[in-house]
Structures are given as structure tokens and as C-alpha cells.
């Protein structure tokens, strides 16, 4: 915790980023605690403790382009079902989070507190990335069985991502150079690598991703 300098005077864009991350990570901790305790790692707990040092950020989010799509995305992964949490939160959102954290942790336009927060976040999501494949394999399976589960559980999440994209571009592209298209490129690259390791047919997985993102 002491590696973080004062985060009380963040600019509006960064305060918004912290508010978004707070929501993502609070939901992750809540769902992992109930359904997938293996993902409630010390790294994740440290990250959430840090995010909690700031107010929740409702006022930063209110009325922004991100407010409604973020709420929809959170709804799409909120579940009492282990498979949905493991796939939606543990696989997809952790990889999306890791891509965001990596981008901001090395971003010269971001403040030092944000860069340090994001370095911790990248470590926490990176840790999850190492744990999730084995959990998917043991709890759901591999290959075609796992692909079917991913197609069922992740489709709502992917469909809700598009609306979030506009907000991300509007809020973060000019100042931080973070674009939704680049972010999705990062996420897809990691997802495909994980899925290949789990015996999923690459073409079928890419076709699913494309289909879900096209809204079909």
C-alpha cells in the first residue's frame, strides 16, 4: 500500500477510471469469495484495498457515456453460477482488465498514483490469468465442451461491450491514446492463446467472438 502516493487530487478522467475499476474489482471480489475462492488472491485483495482508499466515484460516473453500458456489463457477469463467474469474470473481464491496466501502467499521460495502481492491477489480473485455465479445465472441461460453455456464458458480456466502446473512446482516447479497437485486439490475442491451450478450435472460437461482437 505504501507504494502509492496520494490519489486524492486525480483529474476527472483518472477519477473516472478509478471509479470504473472499483466497480469491476469489487464485483470480482464479491463473486470470487462466493463461488471461486481460488481467484481471491492476495494480489486481488491488495488491489481492491487500494481502490477502496478513494470514494466509490458515483459522482464521476453519473451522466457519462460509460454509466449505462458499464451497468449493463456488470449485470451480464453478475451471477450465482460458478461457470458463468469463471468464464465471464475470471476469463473475459480479467483479460479486459489486464489490457486496461497494462495500458495505463506504462502511460506517460497518466499520473503516478494511477500508473502504480495499474501496475498492481496488471499483476493481479496476470495472476488470475495463470490460475483460470486450470479452473476452467477442472470445473467445465476442455475443447468443444468448454467452447460451448463459453458461447453460452460470454455472449451477453460480449454484446454489452460494444456500447462501452463509445464511452472508452470518448473518455480515454484523446488524452491516453487508449482506443476500444486496440483494447479488443489485446484481449482477443490473449483469449485466443488461452483457448488454444485449452484445446478449443481456433477458427470456431474466432467465429464465435466475431459473431457475438457483430451482435448476431
Amino acid at each position, binding site marked *: 500500500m505504501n507504494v502509492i502516493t496520494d490519489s486524492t487530487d486525480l483529474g476527472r478522467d483518472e477519477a473516472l477510471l478509478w471509479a470504473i475499476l472499483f466497480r469491476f474489482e469489487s464485483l470480482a471480489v464479491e463473486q470470487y469469495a462466493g463461488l471461486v475462492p481460488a481467484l481471491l488472491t492476495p494480489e486481488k485483495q491488495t488491489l481492491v484495498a487500494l481502490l477502496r482508499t478513494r470514494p466509490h466515484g458515483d459522482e464521476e460516473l453519473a451522466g457519462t457515456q460509460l454509466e449505462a453500458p458499464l451497468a449493463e456489463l456488470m449485470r451480464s457477469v453478475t451471477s450465482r453460477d460458478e461457470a458463468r463467474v469463471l468464464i465471464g469474470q475470471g476469463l473475459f473481464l480479467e483479460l479486459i482488465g489486464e489490457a486496461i491496466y497494462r495500458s495505463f501502467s506504462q502511460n506517460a499521460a497518466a499520473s503516478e498514483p494511477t500508473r502504480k495502481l495499474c501496475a498492481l492491477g496488471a499483476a493481479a489480473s496476470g495472476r488470475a490469468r495463470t490460475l483460470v485455465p486450470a479452473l476452467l479445465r477442472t470445473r467445465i472441461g476442455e475443447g468443444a465442451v468448454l467452447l460451448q460453455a463459453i458461447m453460452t456464458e460470454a455472449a451477453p458480456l460480449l454484446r454489452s461491450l460494444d456500447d462501452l466502446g463509445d464511452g472508452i473512446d470518448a473518455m480515454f482516447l484523446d488524452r491516453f491514446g487508449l482506443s476500444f*479497437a486496440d483494447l479488443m*485486439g489485446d484481449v482477443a490475442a490473449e483469449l*485466443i492463446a488461452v483457448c488454444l491451450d485449452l484445446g478449443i478450435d481456433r477458427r470456431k472460437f474466432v467465429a464465435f467472438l*466475431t*459473431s457475438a461482437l457483430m451482435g448476431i
Partner: protein
Amino acid sequence: MDTVTTLPGLRPQPEQEAIEKLMGLAIFGEKVAAKIYLLLAELKGDFAPLLKKFARMEANHGAWFLDASRSNGIEPDRAFADNELNYLVAQVDEHFKKKDFDALIIVQGFIVESLAIATYESFLPIAHKYAGTFGVFARALEEERYHVDWVVRYLRLRYFDAVDEFRTLAERVNVQGIDCIGGTMMNISEYLDKIGMSGAYCAGAMMDGYTRLLETVGFEQKDATKHVVGMFMPLIRKYRRGEKTK
């Protein structure tokens, strides 16, 4: 394979319109491909005989598809094809004017062929609906793969130990090329669905096929995926909102 054929008069109107647009694009797209290989032959005399052979093969594909269309009561929609292909032709002319052989070979050998391969592959399982199409599309698919095989070998050798240079070239060419051909993929998606194929699957197959081609010339897998998905995302998002992709 060609055992079940729907007579043109009995084909539902949305399917009839869709297959006319798709066949139009396939036929006139093959003609454009033939033109591109001829332009490439002009730019590199060493490869001219082979590239002219490729051009003849592409022209043959167009002729086969036209015959198969006519015998199935399908009138290829030239206006639709021209509208889709004009942007490509403009890019091709620009690369040719600059005598940029490598840019042109990426546009044709990677981007255009990726669209053709993804859609022809996906067409074969439903080709029995249109008498005589299975054989010609299967043969065209085999020949497109043969062309791509040569293009990959050329680029691997040309950029052997110069992957960064290839990357710079690919990024430059892809921005326009994917916008154009990927845009066409999105624009035909609904027509593919109407004839019983999956537009989304074809789009995914094109992205995956193109990513693999970049990998064969030296991109790391994750790097290639990131690059291709990053370029397709704006097109995918436009499609989702019902906006024109070009």
C-alpha cells in the same frame, strides 16, 4: 454433390436477391483479381509468366461462376459488385502507379484471397442448392490456396530476416485494405445468412485466415491477432449499428 437444386422460380425472393449479389461479387471479384495479377506481372518481369498464369486462373473462376449462375437462373448483380469493388480498384491503381509490388501482392495475395477462401470454404456445404456450383467452387478454392501458397513463399523470402520491415509494410497496406475488403465482408454478411451460410462465421474465418497468413511471414501469433482484430473492430461495430462500412 449437386443433387438438390431449387428452380429459380421457386427460390424465395430474398434468397434470389442475395445469391445474385453474392455471385456478382464472386464473378466480378475474380475479374478484378485477374487484373491485379496482370498488373503484378507488369511490375516484376521475373515472375511475369507465373503471375499471368494466376491471372488466367482467376479469369477462369469468373467464367465458371458465370456459367453456373446462368444455369441456375441467377443473374449476377453487377451494380452491387461494382459498388463493392470500386474502392478496391482505386487502391490497386494507386499501388500500381507507385510501382509498389509488395503492397499490391499483400492486397491481392493476403487480403482479397482471405475473403475468397473464407467465403468459398463456407459455401461448399450449401453448394448442393445450386446445381453445378460445388465442383467449380471447390476447384477455385484449391487454386486460390495455390496462389496464396506462392505469395507466402515470396514474402517469406523477400522479408527473410526483415520481419520489422514486413510489419511496417503490412500495417501500411492493411489500414486501407482491411477497411475495404473487411468492409465488403460486413456488407455481404446478411446475404450470406439469406442463402443459408453464416456471415459471422465467414467474417471470423476471414479474420482467422488473414491472421494466420501474417503469422506465416513472421508476426507472432498474439501480435498478428491484435493487429487484425484492431482493424476489424471498427467495421464490426459499424455493422452492429447498421451503418455503412464504406
